[in-house]
C-alpha cells in the first residue's frame, strides 16, 4: 500500500508580549486552537478533510517550537488555518510557520540550522551570564530532546557536539 | 466388393405369408433396404481413395482390378493398437467431434428433438411443475439435465445479431452452443454474454450463458454458486 503522505509544519509560537515569559502550553491546547481556526476558515469541509490527519507531533515549551502534521493533499488548507490561529490555551499568540517538510527528520534538520543561526541573536537579548547559560541549556535540551524523539543517527551526534563546542566558546 | 443391387423389401420378405407382410410395420419389418445402401454409400465415400471417387459420380459400384499390382493386405500391426487413448491433438487432427457446417438438415434433427422431449418429460414430469416451489426444484434439474437435442432461443445477448437465434442444440461445448435453425443453417453461439431461453411445460427457463460455461458432461456434477450480478 502506498505510504500515507503527510506534510509537517514546523512553527514557532510567538507571544505578543515578549519571549521569555514562561508559559505552560499543552499540546492539546495547540491542537484545539488549530482545529478551531480550521473550522472557522474552511467549515465542515475543511474539518472533514483534515481531521483524520491533523496532529501536533512535537511541542517544546522552552523554544516554543511546534510541529503540526496534515495530509499532503490538503496541506494548503492547514497552512492557511495555521495563520488564522489567535489564541492558544488562554494566551493569545500566533504561529509563525518556519518550514514545511515531508518528514519529521527534514523539519528537525531545518530546526538545527535555525537554532545555529539564531543563537547569536539570543545572546544579545540576554544580558546576564546566568540567562546566557539557561539559553544554552535550553537549546541543548531541545536538540537532544529532538533526537530521542526522532530516531537519531551518527551524523547528528557530530552536529550536536559542534553546537556544544561552539556554544561553549 | 459391392454385392448385387439392393434387395427391395418385396423380394426380401416375399416368401412370408401376406398377412405378416401386411402389418409388417408392427413387427418391425421396416424398409431397411433404403437405409442400407445409404449407409454403405456414405461409408464408401469416406473411405475409398480419392481416385476411385469420380466427381459427383454416385454409382460407386464400378471396380477396377489392377492385375499388375498386388493389393497389399492391411496387416494389423499390434503396436498401433497398444495406444488406446486418442490424444487431444490427434482428436483435433482427425476432427473427431467437429460437426461439418454444410449439408445439415433440420428435419434430420427433429426425431432427436422428440426423443429429447420424452427425456425431459422423464426428468421433469409436467405434473410436478404446478407449484412455484416445484418450479424451483425443476430449475435445479434443468441445470443438471442434458440440453443437446433441446430447443433453445437466444433471448438477450451483448452482440445483438445473435438475438432471436432459435434452434435445436446439436452440440454443447464449454464455451458455445451449436444450433441448427429451422432454415437448415448451423449457428455457433458463444455462451459468454448471452442469455438463452428454454420452453418447457409452459414455463420458460432462462439460462445465463456466462454462468453456464462448463463442459456438457461435467455440468451435472458441478455445484453452481449463485453469481452476484446477472448483468451481461
Amino acid at each position: 500500500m502506498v505510504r500515507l503522505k503527510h506534510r509537517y509544519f514546523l512553527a514557532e509560537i510567538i507571544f505578543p508580549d515578549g519571549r521569555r515569559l514562561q508559559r505552560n502550553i499543552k499540546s492539546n491546547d495547540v491542537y484545539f486552537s488549530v482545529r478551531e481556526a480550521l473550522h472557522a476558515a474552511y467549515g465542515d469541509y475543511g474539518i472533514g478533510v483534515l481531521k483524520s490527519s491533523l496532529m501536533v507531533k512535537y511541542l517544546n515549551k522552552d523554544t516554543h517550537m511546534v510541529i503540526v502534521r496534515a495530509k499532503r493533499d490538503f496541506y494548503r488548507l492547514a497552512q492557511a488555518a495555521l495563520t488564522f490561529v489567535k489564541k492558544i490555551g488562554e494566551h493569545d499568540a500566533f504561529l509563525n510557520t518556519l518550514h514545511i517538510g515531508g518528514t519529521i527528520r527534514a523539519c528537525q534538520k531545518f530546526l538545527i540550522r535555525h537554532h545555529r543561526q539564531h543563537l547569536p541573536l539570543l545572546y544579545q537579548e540576554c544580558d546576564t551570564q546566568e540567562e546566557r547559560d539557561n539559553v544554552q541549556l535550553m537549546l541543548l535540551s531541545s536538540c537532544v530532546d529532538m533526537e530521542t524523539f526522532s530516531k537519531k543517527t551518527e551524523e547528528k551526534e557530530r552536529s550536536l557536539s559542534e553546537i556544544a563546542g561552539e556554544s561553549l566558546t | 466388393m459391392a454385392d448385387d443391387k439392393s434387395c427391395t423389401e418385396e423380394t426380401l420378405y416375399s416368401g412370408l405369408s401376406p398377412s405378416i407382410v401386411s402389418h409388417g410395420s408392427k413387427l418391425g419389418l421396416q424398409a431397411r433396404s433404403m437405409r442400407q445402401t445409404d449407409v454403405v454409400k456414405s461409408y464408401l465415400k469416406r473411405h475409398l481413395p480419392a481416385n476411385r471417387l469420380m466427381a459427383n459420380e454416385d454409382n460407386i459400384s464400378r471396380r477396377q482390378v489392377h492385375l499388375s499390382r498386388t493389393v497389399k493386405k492391411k496387416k494389423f500391426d499390434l503396436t498401433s493398437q497398444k495406444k488406446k487413448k486418442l490424444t487431444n491433438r490427434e482428436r483435433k487432427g482427425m476432427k473427431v467431434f467437429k460437426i461439418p457446417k454444410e449439408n445439415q438438415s433440420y428435419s434430420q434433427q427433429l426425431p432427436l428433438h422428440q426423443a429429447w422431449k420424452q427425456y425431459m418429460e422423464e426428468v421433469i414430469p409436467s405434473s410436478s411443475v404446478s407449484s412455484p416451489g416445484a418450479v424451483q426444484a425443476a430449475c435445479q434439474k434443468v441445470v443438471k439435465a442434458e440440453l443437446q437435442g433441446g430447443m433453445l432461443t437466444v433471448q438477450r445477448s451483448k452482440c445483438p445479431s445473435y438475438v432471436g437465434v432459435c434452434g435445436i442444440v446439436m452440440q454443447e461445448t464449454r464455451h458455445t452452443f451449436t444450433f441448427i435453425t429451422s432454415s437448415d443453417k448451423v449457428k455457433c453461439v458463444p455462451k459468454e454474454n448471452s442469455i438463452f431461453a428454454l420452453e418447457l411445460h409452459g414455463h420458460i427457463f432462462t439460462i445465463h450463458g456466462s454462468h453456464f460455461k462448463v463442459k456438457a458432461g461435467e455440468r451435472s456434477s458441478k455445484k453452481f454458486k449463485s453469481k452476484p450480478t446477472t448483468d451481461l
Partner: protein
Amino acid sequence: MAAPFANGAPNSKLVFEKSSFDDPKSSHERVLNTKYFTHNASIILPYSSSAAQLQFEISEIQDQQVTYLIRDVPVHQLVDKEFIEAFVKKGQLYILSQRRHIDTHNCAAVFPTGHLLLHITKDTYEQLGLEGKPSVFSSLKPTKYVVDIDLKPDSFTPGRKGYDRVLWCLKDRLGLTFDLLISWNPHDEKICASSVSKFFKSKGLVVSPVPWCVQTQWQNKVRTPVLDSTVVTATEDACGRAEAWEWLGAMACGIDLSESCADNYISTLSCPTPSGSCPRCCVLSVSGFFTPVTTKWLLEKVRNEVESKQEKNKVPWGSVTFHGFQDSPVSVGSREHGFFQEGDNLHSFLTFCNKDYWLYSAYGHHDLCQ
C-alpha cells in the same frame, strides 16, 4: 483555495461567429437547415415599436405549420412500408420522442434525411437485436446505444432480409412505444400537411395538435448596451460579445436590470458600461415544436424588423434565439447530443442593421459539436 474543486465545473462550449447575411460563405443557412428540432424561439427587440404586428404575424403562420403529438406510437409503425412510401419519401418528416430523458430513457427521432435513430439503454439494446454503436459519451461500460436505420433506400422493402429483421425486432421482439411529436411538410403543395394525422388516426392512435404558446414582455426604461458589429472585444465606445451575450440572457430570463436594484449585496449583475437607455424593449418568446422552415421564417422577420427602419425610430440591432430540445438525440445535423448536468444546444443570432450578424451557439457538456 481548496484545490480539489478546480475541475468540478462541467466544461461547456460557446462558439461565436461574426459574419454578414449577404456573404456567400455565411453559415446561417446551414445552421438553421441542420437544426431539425427547435423548442423555443425568443426574440429580443430593443427600441422596437411594431412588436405587436410581429406577434400577429406569428399567430398567422401558426395554422400553416401544424405539428402533432401522438401518444404511445409503437415504433414499428414508423418502419411500416406504406408509411415510408407516403411520408418519408414524399416530404421532410421531423419526428421526436417527447417526455423521455435522453440520459436514462429510450428516445427516438426521425430526420428529413430518412434516418430513424433509436437512442436506447443497454438493456433494451441487448434485447432488441438490431446492430448499433455505443453512444460517444458513455465511458468504457456503455450505458446507452444508438441504432440508426436508414428508411429511404429501396432495398428497405418487405421480403428483404434487412427489412424483415428490423420489423421483427421492433414488432415481436420488443414493443417499444413512444409519445411522438410529428411535423411534416410535403414536397409538392397539393398534399396538405395534416394527412400525417389522418394516417395515425386511421391506426387508432390518439392524435392532438400542438399549439404554439406566445408570450410577450415589455420592459420600460431599460439600459441597453451600445453594440458595434465590428467591435468584438469590449472598448470604451462599444460593448464586447461576452457582455452582450450575458445581457441578452438576462433580458430573455426577464431579469430587472434597471438601476434601482443594482445595489451590490443581492446581485452585482448590471447592464454593461457603454449603454444607452431605451424607452421600451420587447421580449417575445414562442415555444412549440419548430422545424427549420419556421426558424428561417422567424429569422427573416427579425431581419426585416431591424434593417427596414433605418432612420426614423432607429433599431440598431435585434436578436432571435432558437433553443433546441434538451433531450433530442442530435443537436446539429447528425451530431450526437447527450445530457450531463445541462443539455443545451441553442443558437442565437444578433442581427445588426448593416446586414452583419453575430451567431452564438452554446453547447452542453455532452455534445459532439465543434
